[in-house]
Every structure is written in C-alpha cells, then in structure tokens.
C-alpha cells in the first residue's frame, strides 16, 4: 500500500455535526435554566400563598383579640400560627441558601418580618391577658458580613425552640432595610457591631449565648415546661 492510499482518508465528521450538537447542548441548557426558573418561581408563589394565609390568620387572631372582652381566653389559638411562621421562615431560609438573595425573596422576607412583629405584639397581649406561659425572644442577626456567631446563635435558638415549645423566637435580619425592624433596632439600641443580639423582657443580650447561658438569663423558660 502506498502513501497516497493512506493520506486521503475521508474524515467523517463535518462541521455541521459539531454545530448541530452544540445547538442541541445549548437547547438542553436553556431548557434546564428555564425549568429551574419556573420551579423557583413556583416556590416563591407557594411562599406568597403561605404568607397570605398567615396574614388572614393574624387578622383573624387580632379580631378575636378585640373581641376578647366578650370571649373566653381558650378561644384564642396560637400554636397553629407559630408553626406556620416557623415553616415560612425555614422555607425562606432554604431558598436564600440555595438560590441566593433576589428582590422577590427580600420582599418576602420583609413581609415575613412584619408578620413576625404583628404576631409578637398580639401574642404578648394575649399572654398578658390570658396568663399563658410564653416566653418571647427577639433575635437580631446579620447575613451580610459572615457573622459566624450569628450562625451558631441560630442553631442554639432552633435547639431551644425544640426543647421549649412555649418559646417564641422572632428573628430579624439587621440589614433588611425595613422601617418596622429599624424601629425595633432603635427601641432596643442594637448596634451592628454587637450582633448577634437577643431581646427578652426588654433586656438586651449581645454576642453569642449558648443554650445554658440563655436558660440562666431567662429562668422562666424552664417554668414553661409541663411538670
């Protein structure tokens, strides 16, 4: 066999195939990004629905509260709302961790914070009037500059909430830029250099506090447990 026979080998793969495969791959990626976007939007829509439900429930609870003069304290149910708020908080946190912060998510977070404040005010009133065994903690944190103590404090509060079902923790992102949250910050004089910060019974505790620390600082926590 001579050289000529071997050098004129026809190459089977034309440029058109490279282009077609590129377009198929591009199509697959565009589809994936589109599907991802649609599914994430559905999740946001689900959060909106939850928030609307909470709004309605809160309004209902507020109305119940207004009627309390005429009604029995046992008519006011608070645990369902608390569970809903917790569920919403977990879902917002999950979306934030997985998809990053978006305008829509920030908006949801603001609405959530407002609902928290409303729930806090209402539940405090109900607790005072009906003598319920509830403990409230306002928790201020930041996500903006890698506050590792805030991450740890978050774990502690989650743990405490599991341990003491009557504990209600309301967490607020310091940098959320929401006037209602800023008012709370002003009232308790919380500085961004002292985060994480906890507020309970108008007392402010700055820096990280372990489960044991908090149990010591708020002794009535233990009293909420059934004997």
């Amino acid at each position, binding site marked *: 066999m001579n050289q000529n026979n071997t050098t*004129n080998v026809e190459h089977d793969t034309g440029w058109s195939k490279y282009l077609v495969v590129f377009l198929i791959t591009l199509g697959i990626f565009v589809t994936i990004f589109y599907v991802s976007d649609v599914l994430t939007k559905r999740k946001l829509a689900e959060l909106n629905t939850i928030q609307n439900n909470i709004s309605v429930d809160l309004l209902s609870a507020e109305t119940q509260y207004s009627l309390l003069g005429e009604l029995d304290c046992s008519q006011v149910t608070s645990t369902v709302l608390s569970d809903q708020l917790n569920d919403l908080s977990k879902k917002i946190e999950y979306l934030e961790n997985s998809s990053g912060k978006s305008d829509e998510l920030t908006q949801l977070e603001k609405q959530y914070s407002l609902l928290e404040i409303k729930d806090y005010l209402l539940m405090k009133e109900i607790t005072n009037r009906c003598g319920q065994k509830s403990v409230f903690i306002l928790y201020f944190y930041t996500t903006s500059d890698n506050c590792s103590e805030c991450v740890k404090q978050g774990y502690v509060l989650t*743990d405490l909430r599991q341990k003491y079902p009557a504990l209600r923790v309301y967490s607020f992102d310091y940098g959320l830029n929401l006037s209602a949250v800023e008012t709370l910050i002003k009232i308790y004089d919380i500085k961004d250099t002292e985060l994480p910060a906890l507020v309970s019974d108008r007392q402010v505790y700055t820096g990280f506090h372990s489960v044991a620390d908090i149990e010591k600082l708020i002794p009535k926590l233990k009293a909420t447990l059934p004997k």
Partner: protein
Amino acid sequence: MEQVFSFIFYIFTFLAVYVEVFFLVTYLERRKDIVVRLDDKPNRVYPSVTVIVPCWNEQTTVQGTVESLLALDYPKDKIKIMLVDDGSTDNTWNVLQQFAHTPNIEVIHKENGGKHTAMNLGIEKATTEMIGCLDADSYVTPSALKRMIPYFDEPGVMAVSPSIIVKDPKRPIEWAQKIEYQLSVYIKKMLGLMNGIHVTPGPFSIYRIEVFQQLGPYREAHKTEDMEIAYRMHEAGMRIEQCHDAQVFTKTPPTAVALYKQRKRWIYGFINNTIDYRRLIFKEKYGAFALFTIPAGVVSIFSAIYLFIFMIYTFVKFITNKFVQFQAVGVHVSTVVQPQQFSWFYVSTQAVFLITVLLYGFVFTSLMIGARMSTGKWKPSFAMVWYIAIYSIIAPLWIMRAVINTVFRRETAWR
C-alpha cells in the same frame, strides 16, 4: 466566590454534556451499522498476520495468552506468533519454552529495554501483511481476528482495535473496571465511526505492516507507545477502526493502588503525547481526532480536577457547618440528621443540581449502551452505581498526580 465556582461549573458541564450528546447522536445515526455478527461467515481474504507478544515477568498469564492465540479461528498457515521475552527476571522464559517447537511460534529472548523495544524486535523480523500486538495478560476470543480483518477491506483503514473486556471480576475494584471497559466499548466505537481513536491498545490491535514501514517503529513515548503510534498515524492521515464485536479479555489491576499506578501512566502518557503533538490540535485536516478527541480529553482532565475540588469544597463546607452546629448545641440527633417531613419544596430546583442530574443521566445512558454492546443486554446493574461512585473519588487522584508529574517533569513507572 460561589458565583465563580458556579460559572466554571457551567462551562465544564456544558462541555461534558456536549461530548455526551456527540456520542449519543453518533450512536443514533449509526446504530444500524453496529451489529454483532452471530453467524461467523468465512472472510473474503485471510491476509497473513504476525502477532507479537511482548513479555516481562508474565509467568502466570502468558501461557493462557498463547493458548488463546493458538485457538484463533484463522488459517494456521496465515498466522505467526512471536513471543518476545523482554529480559524477564521471573520464570517467564521457561514457561515460553513449552511453545518453542510449535510450528508457527517463534520464541525470542532479549535484554530488558521496555515494551516498545520488544515490539520493535518483532516488527523487524515480521514479513507478514499485518502485525498485531497482544499483551501477555490478555486473551483473545476465537473469532476476534476473523472479525477484525474485514475492516481492512477499506483501503484507508490502517489499524483495527478490538473490544476489551474484563472477565470474571472478583474484587470490587475489578467490578468497577469491568463497567469502565464496557463503557469504553461504546466510546471507542463512536470514536472509530468518527475516525477519532487516539490509542491502539496493547490487547490485540492489528496494523497493516505499512504503518511501521512508513512511520517507523514504536517509540518509548512516555511509556504509552500504543498511544503515540495512534497520534503518529493520525498525523499521516491513517485511519484507525474499532471492531466492537471482536472481544479480547484482559487482566485488570486487582487493587486500587495498582489501578492508580496504571492510570497515572496512561493519563501522563495522554498529557505528554498531546503536548508532543500539539501541532495537530484543532487542525481540520486531522478530523475528529484533532477537533474532538484530544480537546475532549484535555477538557475532561481539567473538569475532573475542578469537579473534585468542587466536591471537596462542598464537603468541607458541610463538615464545617456541622462542626459549628456541634460547637453551638453539642451532639443531638438533630445535629447529625435533621428530621423533617418530606416536602417537594426542599427538592433542589437549582440549575446546578438539575445539570448534575442530567449529566449523571447521560453517564448512565452511556453505561447502558456500553453494556448492551458488550453483553447484548440492556441490563442496569449495581456495579454501574459502584463504578460512578468509586471513580468519582479515585480518578481525580491519578489525573492530578499525572498533571503534577508533567509539571515537575517526573517520569512515571510502568507498575
């Protein structure tokens, strides 16, 4: 930081999906041509063939290798077997003596000089139309040669490689390799159809003698002479084909360490041969070899390293998180696993996750096609999952070591 990671991830996965789609499109285009010949009809011609068996310390396997060659379904007067003992220090030479008086076998002894020198000695002495190589730890099936020869009816085809199969794997690492070799059957066939094969492996590649007459003998080539000759052939415009239904069984490294050494040598060879022949890359005249195979190989090296680092980064992040949680609240059941009710909300819909699932889907499809081409059955197996899991962890290690050895100009050892 996360965004940079994600961006690079998208680039690499795009290229990986591109390669997978390329193979799949080729398979769908040509699937009717990929038949397994169940009725072995007589060939039109039976060119004479010399099969060279280079041996270095192969006392336990070489007898089986030679016996498999003697059992080939091919006219005995058309086949010559050259057993070249490359200065073995074990009992190989004595084992070979039992074949010294077999009519079509020649037994040769030489000083140790490396596999390529043993092959070149055989090539020098060969007078047949075709030359084959068979590693002394591999065994041909009787129909292999007869099925490979018709590929040479095409004048441009200058070499043909068979499908290499792992027989009777016993250890877990051998099972993983069996799946890998099945995958190679599919990949190599697709590359063969595109004229993009970049290696003519030791287990039973057959060449026209003109390859060596025109291009010269094998070279040391970073201990991957079977790769370098393929590069040289592509440069000379010679076509390499893959005969998927000719099967050769090979012995694979039985331990993870042995596998690591073997693959480090292969990847080192790929990197360094590619550097030596960089003038070919992206040159249209060298076809799919230069436009697809080599670039895809280079990209796979970088992406394997990157994905490994990405995996380590994710793992370290997870562990750090758990450690912070442990520091904060100590060990609870909820620290280790957070029990929560299943909700679709928590199934990731991130593009990174969906692309990863898609990529694994493509890999699994390739494994299934490879199994079909090797065994004739569309049968998923647990070994496929095992292969993906173990190779995801260990393959980046030999790839990284081969890159480091290249950067610091350290040669790799054979075994």
